[in-house]
C-alpha cells in the first residue's frame, strides 16, 4: 500500500464536467466522438473551462493558452469538492504535478503559415518579422509548468511544480506516479495532479497518425476491443486528482474517495515489456486480483492487442474503456480514467465499452463489459493501465486503486 489516497477529482470531457456524466453516457451507449474533417474527435465545449474573474486572473490572461484554461478549470473543480487550504502557513506542504505536452503548445499552427507567406516578400529580417507579428508570449504560454503556475495560483499550493509528459507521461499515470513519490518521501503532504489535452493541431494529428493510425470513423464496431477497430479515436479532456497521504486526509476529516495501492510508469525496449513490468510492479504486493480493469484501450489495432495480451490474463477481471465514448485525451487520458474508475467503484457498477459491437477474438480471453453495466462489490479495486501514443512510445503505466479501507 502506498498510503496515498485520492480525496477529490475534477473532470472535464466532451460529456461535460464530472465523472458521472461519462459513466452515464457509457451506460446509455451515448458517444461524444463526432465526425470531423479527417478524424472524428470528442471535443470540449469551451464554456466548460471559463477563465476566472478578478485579479490576478485578468492581468495574467495573456500568458494563458487553451490548455491553461482547462487546467485551471479542472483544478477548480477538484478544489471545489474538497476545499483544501494552500500551504501559506508552511504547516502543510502542497504541490502540483502537471501532465501536459509541449509540442505545438505555442498555438501558432494557424498563424505561422500566413507569416511564412508574408516573409517571402517582407523586407524585415525573419527574426524581426516574427518579433513584430507573432502574438506576444506565445512561446512561454504553452510551457507545461507555466500552466502549472496557474494551478498554483488557483490552489495556493506553493510546494513545487513540475510537469511529466510525452514519452514518460503514459497518459498522466507518469505524473501520478511522480506525485505519489513526492508524498511517500514526505516532501509534500498534498499534491494536485492535473492533466490537459487541448485540441490537436493538424500537424500533430498527422504525426500521431503516422506513428499509429488514428480512427477515421466513430461508429459502432470502431471502438476499443472491436474486431473492426481501426485506430485511436481523438478526444480532448482535462482532469485533476487531489492526492494526499491518508493520515493527512483523516486529520482534516476527509473520507478518501479511494486509496492508491500502487502506481508505476516504466519504459522498456517495447510497449509490451514496459506494460508487463508496470503491471507486475503494481500487482506484486496484492495477492488478490482486481475487481475490474479500466484499460487504456484506445481502439488502436496494435496497442489494444499488446495491452490485452499482456494484461488480460493477469487482470482476470471485467474490463472496460472510456475511449469509445469520449476519445483518447492523450496526455491526461489515464487521469480521466482513474477518476472514472474511482467513481465506478463508488457507485458499484462498471459501464460498458462504447462503440464495441464484436470483441476481437485475437485479443485473447477477455471479459469485456458490453451492453449492460456490471455490478461491482463494495470496497472494490480497479487496475488502470495506460501508455503514450506512438511506435516509439515504449513507456507504459499501471495503477491499482481501491475503495476498501478508505473510510
Amino acid at each position: 500500500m502506498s498510503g496515498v489516497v485520492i480525496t477529490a477529482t475534477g473532470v472535464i470531457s466532451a460529456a461535460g464536467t464530472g465523472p458521472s456524466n461519462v459513466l452515464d453516457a457509457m451506460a446509455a451507449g451515448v458517444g461524444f466522438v463526432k465526425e470531423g474533417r479527417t478524424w472524428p474527435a470528442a471535443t470540449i465545449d469551451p464554456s466548460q473551462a471559463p477563465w476566472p474573474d478578478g485579479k490576478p486572473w485578468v492581468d495574467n490572461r495573456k500568458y494563458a493558452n487553451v490548455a491553461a484554461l482547462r487546467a485551471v478549470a479542472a483544478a477548480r473543480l477538484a478544489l471545489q469538492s474538497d476545499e483544501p487550504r494552500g500551504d501559506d502557513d508552511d504547516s502543510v506542504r502542497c504541490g502540483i504535478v502537471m501532465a501536459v505536452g509541449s509540442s505545438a503548445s505555442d498555438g501558432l499552427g494557424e498563424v505561422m503559415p500566413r507569416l511564412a507567406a508574408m516573409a517571402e516578400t517582407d523586407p524585415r529580417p525573419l527574426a524581426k518579422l516574427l518579433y513584430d507579428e507573432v502574438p506576444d508570449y506565445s512561446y512561454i504560454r504553452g510551457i507545461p509548468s507555466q500552466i502549472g503556475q496557474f494551478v498554483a495560483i488557483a490552489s495556493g499550493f506553493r510546494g513545487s511544480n513540475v510537469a511529466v509528459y510525452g514519452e514518460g507521461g503514459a497518459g498522466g499515470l507518469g505524473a501520478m506516479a511522480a506525485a505519489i513519490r513526492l508524498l511517500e518521501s514526505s516532501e509534500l503532504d498534498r499534491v494536485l495532479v492535473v492533466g490537459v489535452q487541448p485540441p490537436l493541431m493538424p500537424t500533430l494529428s498527422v504525426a500521431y497518425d503516422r506513428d499509429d493510425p488514428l480512427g477515421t470513423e466513430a461508429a459502432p464496431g470502431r471502438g476499443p476491443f472491436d474486431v473492426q477497430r481501426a485506430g485511436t479515436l481523438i478526444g480532448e479532456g482535462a482532469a485533476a486528482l487531489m492526492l494526499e497521504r491518508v493520515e493527512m486526509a483523516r486529520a482534516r476529516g476527509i473520507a478518501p474517495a479511494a486509496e492508491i495501492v500502487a502506481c508505476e510508469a516504466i519504459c522498456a525496449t517495447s510497449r509490451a515489456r514496459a506494460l508487463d513490468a508496470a503491471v507486475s510492479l503494481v500487482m506484486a504486493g496484492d495477492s488478490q486480483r482486481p475487481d475490474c480493469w479500466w484499460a487504456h484501450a484506445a481502439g488502436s489495432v496494435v496497442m489494444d492487442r499488446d495491452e490485452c495480451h499482456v494484461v488480460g490474463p493477469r487482470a482476470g477481471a471485467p474490463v472496460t474503456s472510456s475511449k469509445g465514448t469520449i476519445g483518447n485525451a492523450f496526455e491526461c487520458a489515464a487521469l480521466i480514467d482513474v477518476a472514472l474508475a474511482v467513481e465506478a467503484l463508488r457507485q458499484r457498477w462498471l459501464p460498458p465499452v462504447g462503440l464495441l459491437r464484436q470483441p476481437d477474438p485475437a485479443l485473447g480471453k477477455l471479459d469485456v463489459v458490453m451492453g449492460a453495466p456490471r455490478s461491482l462489490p463494495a470496497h472494490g479495486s480497479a487496475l488502470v493501465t495506460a501508455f503514450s501514443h506512438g511506435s516509439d512510445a515504449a513507456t507504459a503505466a499501471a495503477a491499482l486503486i481501491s475503495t476498501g479501507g478508505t473510510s
Partner: protein
Amino acid sequence: MNSDVVVTGMGVVTPIGGSVESFWEANLAGKTGLTLEHRMDVAGLPCGWVAGIIPDEVKAEVKDRHGQSNRSWGDTLMHAAVDQALTDAEVGQGLVRPAGLVWTRVWPGPSGSFPEDYVTHMKALAKRYHTVGGDPAALTGYLREQPLPPETTDSSAFPAELSARLGVPLHAMRLEATCSGGLRSIAEAARLLRMGKVDVAVVSASVSRSTPYVLSQYGQLMALSRWRGDPAQASMPFDRRRTGMVINESAGALVLETAEHAECRGVDTVHAVVGGWGLAVGADHLTAPSEAMIERVMRTAVERSGLTPNDVDTINAHGTSTRLNDLTEARAMHRVFGERMSTLDVCAVKSLTGHGSAASGITESVVAALTLCRGVIPPVVTCTEPDPKCNVRTSLTPVDRPVQTVLKNSFGFGGQYASMVFKRPANPRCGVA
C-alpha cells in the same frame, strides 16, 4: 551501509567543452563559449544575438557518433552526454534491477534546432499557405505528403534506447520545470534512489534552439542581453553593466547511485554526494523572480542537508545576467548568509556558457562536483565591475581552497525555484574516465 546518493558518472557537451575535462579547464581558464550568431540577421531587434554555440568540431563528433536519421538534435546531444556519463561511471549491462531515468529536452519550437532548420520550416509553411491556404479540409491531405521534423511531437526513442543499452526496464520520468528542470531532475532521481526503487539512475537534459523563432520570443520578453561590445562579455552575472541573458545549446548527464550499490560494484571514488534540496513554486508574479522564494528554497536545501548556512562553502549561482534575476538572487543570498556574504565565494557558469535552460542545472552541477573534488572555485571573468547592489563576492581568477559543500541554485519561468546542496565525498575522484 552508506545510504548516501552519490554521483559516479558525468558527461557534458557545452559551448566551452565537449567533455568534462575540457569543460572544467575552460571554466578555470575563463574561456568563453559566447559568440555572435552570424547565421541570423538581428537587425531591428531590441537585443543583439550572442549565443553559446557548441564548436563545430564538437558538433561534428557528436553527430558522427550519435546522430541518426529522424533523431532530433536535442536527442543526439542527450545521447552524447549520457554516453560520457555511463562510460565514466562504468555502468553497462550488469544491472539486475530496473534503473531510473529522469530527463528533459527543451522544446526548440516546431522546427529543428538551427537557424537554417527554421528557414526551411518557414519555406515549407509558405508553400503550404500558397497550396491550401486556410482550407482545413485540404490541409490534412497536404500534410500527409510532407516530411515532419521529429520535434513535431513529444515522442522520443531515447528512453527505450537507454533501456536497451542498460538491459533493464527504467523507471522513466520525462519532466519539465523550465530552467530549474536540471536540478529538479537530479532531485527526482535521488528520490527514486532514496526510496529504494532503483540502484542506479541516469539524469540528463539537453537544449538547442538557436532559431529566429526563439530569438523573437525571448526578445519579446526583453530577457536577452543587449550588450553591443565584445561577445565574450555579453553574459556578466552580478556585474553592474549586465543587460540580459545569453541562450546556449548544451547537454549534461549524471549517473547517480546509492553509495551502497557503488561500493558493491567496486567503485572506489565518486564525484559528489547529493545532499538536500529545496523546491517551490512562486505565484505572486508570472515572470519576475521572488526573493522570498529563493530564500525559501536555499534555506530548505541547507536544512535538509543537516547543515546551517555557516556550513556552506560556496554558491554555484543561477546567475543569468538579467538585471532582475541577479539582483533578486543576490538579495536572497544576503538574507540567508548575512555577513558571511563578504567572504562567501560565488561562481556563475553562465558567464562563459550562456544559459542552457534545464541543461544548465546539470552542467553547472558538474562544475559543483568538480569544485568539491578539486578544491577550486571557478572565476567569473565577465564580472569586472561588480554591481554594488548585488554585493556578491566573485573572483576574476580561480580560487583554490578546500570545499566541503556547494549550494547550487536554479530558477525559471513557471514560478520555478530549486536549490540543492552537493557535498564532498569521502573518496573524491580526481579525474573523469
